[in-house]
């Protein structure tokens, strides 16, 4: 019963905090380059405005185009519900593991790419093809990270991995450092952040994610935007619960522990948002064809982390 309640709280928190995180990162980025920036709550206002607006559909759009935003949003939200954010012992965490999260996000991306192709505009096509190129490189790297973590913890379940990482059995391991760097690189690519894609641009030559959703409007666009906010939050939560698992409340610790977990989680999000904003301000976007090198390095780190684990398991 408690598990269900925690699960419900978590899903609400994730959904409510995701636009705030996006607004916070935007605000920080604006401040770092000396602008005032939009207010923190601007993403909520944008979403509310989009929800009120009428949907404009292209004439060539099929049912797939209309269904895709709901599927994308649902898959992303379910994936986010599986990640322990402020408490482990979630009701759903026994249903699916980290590989399922990767699969859910992969199917969300697949639907979005199909929708981009569906209308038949050239921008949608170029966006979809680039997105699939990035995905085909990012997913193997992500899976190598999952393998590293599960070899170490003995399970692919995130709640279990988070509990293991809090325990004393972890030790100092070079594999974990490599897995962290690889996961951060994958997260940057998957969330269309700066060295790979610029979330704030509509320049034809460089846009990837924005090109796919160019034809969307109204509530469809609101759902897709919300899904991308949730996805950013999800990756930060995964990195937080695996590599900085301190403060996550364990099931049965009582109300105070949950409250403390919530505060620590907010702190983690704030720190991650600050790092992301500083990183994005300092970096320049790379050419699309350099992305394969970037993600290839992430994959290599993942493989190397797994290999080194075989040596360190001697101990």
């Amino acid at each position: 019963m408690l598990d269900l309640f925690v699960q419900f709280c978590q899903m609400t928190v994730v959904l409510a905090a995701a636009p705030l995180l996006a607004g916070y990162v935007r605000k920080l980025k604006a401040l770092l380059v000396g602008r005032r920036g939009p207010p923190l709550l601007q993403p909520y206002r944008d979403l509310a405005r989009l929800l009120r607006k009428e949907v404009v559909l292209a004439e060539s759009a099929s049912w797939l185009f209309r269904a895709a935003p709901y599927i994308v949003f649902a898959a992303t939200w379910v994936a986010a519900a599986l990640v322990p954010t402020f408490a482990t012992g979630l009701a759903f965490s026994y249903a699916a593991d980290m590989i399922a999260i990767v699969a859910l996000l992969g199917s969300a991306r697949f639907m979005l790419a199909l929708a981009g192709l569906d209308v038949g505009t050239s921008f949608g096509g170029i966006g979809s093809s680039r997105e699939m190129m990035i995905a085909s490189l990012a997913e193997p790297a992500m899976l190598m990270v999952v393998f590293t973590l599960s070899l170490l913890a003995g399970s692919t379940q995130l709640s279990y991995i988070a509990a293991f990482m809090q325990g004393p059995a972890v030790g100092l391991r070079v594999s974990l450092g490599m897995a962290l760097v690889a996961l951060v690189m994958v997260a940057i690519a998957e969330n269309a952040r700066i060295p790979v894609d610029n979330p704030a641009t509509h320049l034809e030559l460089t846009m990837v994610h924005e090109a796919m959703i160019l034809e969307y409007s109204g509530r469809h666009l609101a759902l897709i935007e919300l899904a991308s906010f949730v996805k950013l939050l999800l990756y930060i939560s995964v990195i937080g619960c695996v590599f900085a698992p301190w403060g996550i409340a364990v099931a049965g610790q009582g109300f105070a522990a949950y409250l403390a977990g919530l505060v620590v989680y907010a702190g983690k999000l704030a720190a991650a948002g600050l790092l992301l904003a500083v990183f994005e301000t300092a970096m320049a976007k790379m050419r699309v064809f350099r992305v394969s090198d970037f993600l290839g390095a992430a994959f290599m780190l993942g493989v190397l982390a797994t290999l080194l684990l075989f040596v360190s398991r001697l101990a």
Partner: protein
Amino acid sequence: MTGSLAFDVAHLLAGALVLVSMMLLYQDRMTSLINIFALHALVVSFSVAWQAHIQQAPHLYITAAIALVIKATVIPVVLHRIVVRLQIHRTIEPVVGVGLTMLAAIGLVALAIMVMLPITAQAALVAREDLAFALSVILLGLLMMISRRNAVSQVVGFMSIENGLILAATGAKGMPLVVEISVAFSILVALIVIGIFLFRIRERFETVDVHLLHEHRGEQP
């Protein structure tokens, strides 16, 4: 707990060395290549110093100091000078197929681990792990030498092989200090000889791209 910490730090440093070897393969600019090589030597020096600490072997500190002074400071500075004098410090070296080289590199690391772990089953834990990583570093250095066309990059590959040998030697309960000192100085002599050679190649062919040497070996018809 202390035993496990000793192993963990040794593992961390040796693993970092393999990672830096990978980074050497990834660089395409001369200056950054030499800087990464300095980092490589720095990691070796830390690794040797840690071995000296856990094996209670003070003479290994001297090895670490030699690595720090000669390989992490003198050789990079000299290489930087050579590169500037050869006017190639701003050139981007066309690395042939970074992706393929990386895949080969990962395969070599896997091979080294697969070969070393079974045949050293009786040795001490730290020695086994150091030997496996040392073999990977050596193989990666060889890969660096065969995949690059620029003579300076090949020198860096050669020097990184020597770092791998140091790692192997210190992991296996140390080698005599005399041997270590003579190896360090032979590396310095090798650097000088190679440096002279670089200038000779350059004088003769106006480039340090070693592919131009092939037709002078008499292999081609």
